[in-house]
């Protein structure tokens, strides 16, 4: 079946089998391996991407369900010149990762949060990330990383 998807700003057309999962489409056809596969049962959130700005678990979405949509993966967050997104910087600055497996999904779930709520409390950050599991950090540093990013986005907005 033919689908047309805009991934990180670039439109693609592909002929896919209806049973192809979005995560496999992104990793194998689009070559974007930043989106990870963990549990494959829609529990862990490692496969989280944005579909029309909303966080979804791409291991439980069919590629055909994404037909006509805009997808953002972790590769789509940094600027043209490789400038890190404030969330990426925050995870760096605040040690928001250890093994890094959960990180792309965490960042995209956090991205949705900041786009809806630029001033989240710690409790709101935790709530927004409850669909994402991390087995390394104990979450504390992830929450701090998101706070760091929120602060940075705020500062940037004031400058602009």
């Amino acid at each position, binding site marked *: 079946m033919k689908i047309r998807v805009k991934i990180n700003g670039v439109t693609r057309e592909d002929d896919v089998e209806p*049973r192809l999962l979005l995560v496999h489409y992104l990793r194998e056809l689009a070559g974007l391996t930043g989106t990870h596969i963990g549990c494959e049962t829609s529990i862990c959130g490692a496969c989280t991407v944005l579909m029309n700005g909303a966080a979804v678990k791409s291991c439980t979405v069919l590629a055909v369900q994404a037909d006509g949509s805009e997808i953002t993966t972790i590769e789509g967050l940094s600027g043209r010149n490789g400038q890190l997104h404030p969330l990426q910087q925050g995870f760096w600055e605040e040690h928001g990762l250890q093994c890094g497996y959960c990180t792309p999904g965490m960042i995209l779930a956090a991205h949705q949060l900041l786009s809806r709520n630029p001033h989240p409390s710690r409790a709101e950050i935790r709530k927004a990330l409850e669909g994402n599991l991390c087995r390394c950090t104990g979450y504390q540093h992830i929450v701090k990383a998101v706070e760091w990013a929120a602060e940075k986005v705020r500062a940037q907005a004031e400058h602009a």
Partner: protein
Amino acid sequence: MQAFEYASPRSLQEAIRLLPAQWGPTDVLAGGTDLVSAMKDGISTPQRLVNIKQIAELHRMTFSPRAGLHIGATVTLRELLDDGAVQQHYPGLIQAAEAARSEQLLNMGTVGGELLQRPRCWYYRNGYGLLALRDGKSLVPEGENQYHAILGNAGPAYFVSPSFLAPILIALGATVQLHGPRGARSLPVQKLFVTPTRVGQREHDLAPNEILTEIRVPYRPGVRTAVYEIREKEALDWPLAMAAVALRQEGGVLRDPRVVLGQVAPVPWPSPEAERTLTGKKPSEDLADAAGRAAVAQATPLSKNGYKVQLARIAVKRAILSAVQQGG
């Protein structure tokens, strides 16, 4: 996952034409959060999926005091939570929908799919079927039944109804619209749920070629509502027991109380016993406690789920207290 063909019709009529008269070969796809998982696990093996998310009329939500709230079946849980009229007039619905864990689920899961999600019973999810039969006998009564039913569990069905919106919708007197080849019919939400008694029967009163199109919730100003649920852990899980309550207070006493339990029986479980306990009485902690006891008086726990009786009792009690405190 087994290969299948995919159709994405734009009209309801076209979608209904694509659905056969038996279960199995074709499934309706909404958000897919439940169905795609079941397909990956080989629990559902359709040869065709009919995606209903391109049908504009299923994605509408309207409110007026006269008609109440009409929720299109493919409205997502996120859209429901973000709706101003729902926030203003249906706090109980917000409370119930907020309980769905994870932003990702709220974004993809639809209200229709939430009502029609299949049970979480692990025998069912591991391929033993809804009645969990081996050699004609249910594995549940002597098996791993810690999450199974404590009410309405005379058998052969022991699973619990997984919907967390159904109890409050029933308490609010909501109905669903179903469309099939012979036109539309309307059912009270309670009647959408059935306890299967034989192999092959589903837990919903929905024909294989019918589509749930809309949920209608009457507007009842002055009705206080609350939902209380008890979980094993905070994240990503279904409650162990929950209760939804709707009631009015008039001259210091309770009127028209509705008490509906969830996650305790193969269907959402209204409790006329609890309702009788409350009617016409002055609200108090003792009264709420008595209603909780009445709600589980008939419970028949299995070998490993006796603890759920106490959880259900407490859920009823706390939902009542919270509804009373909440105000209109």
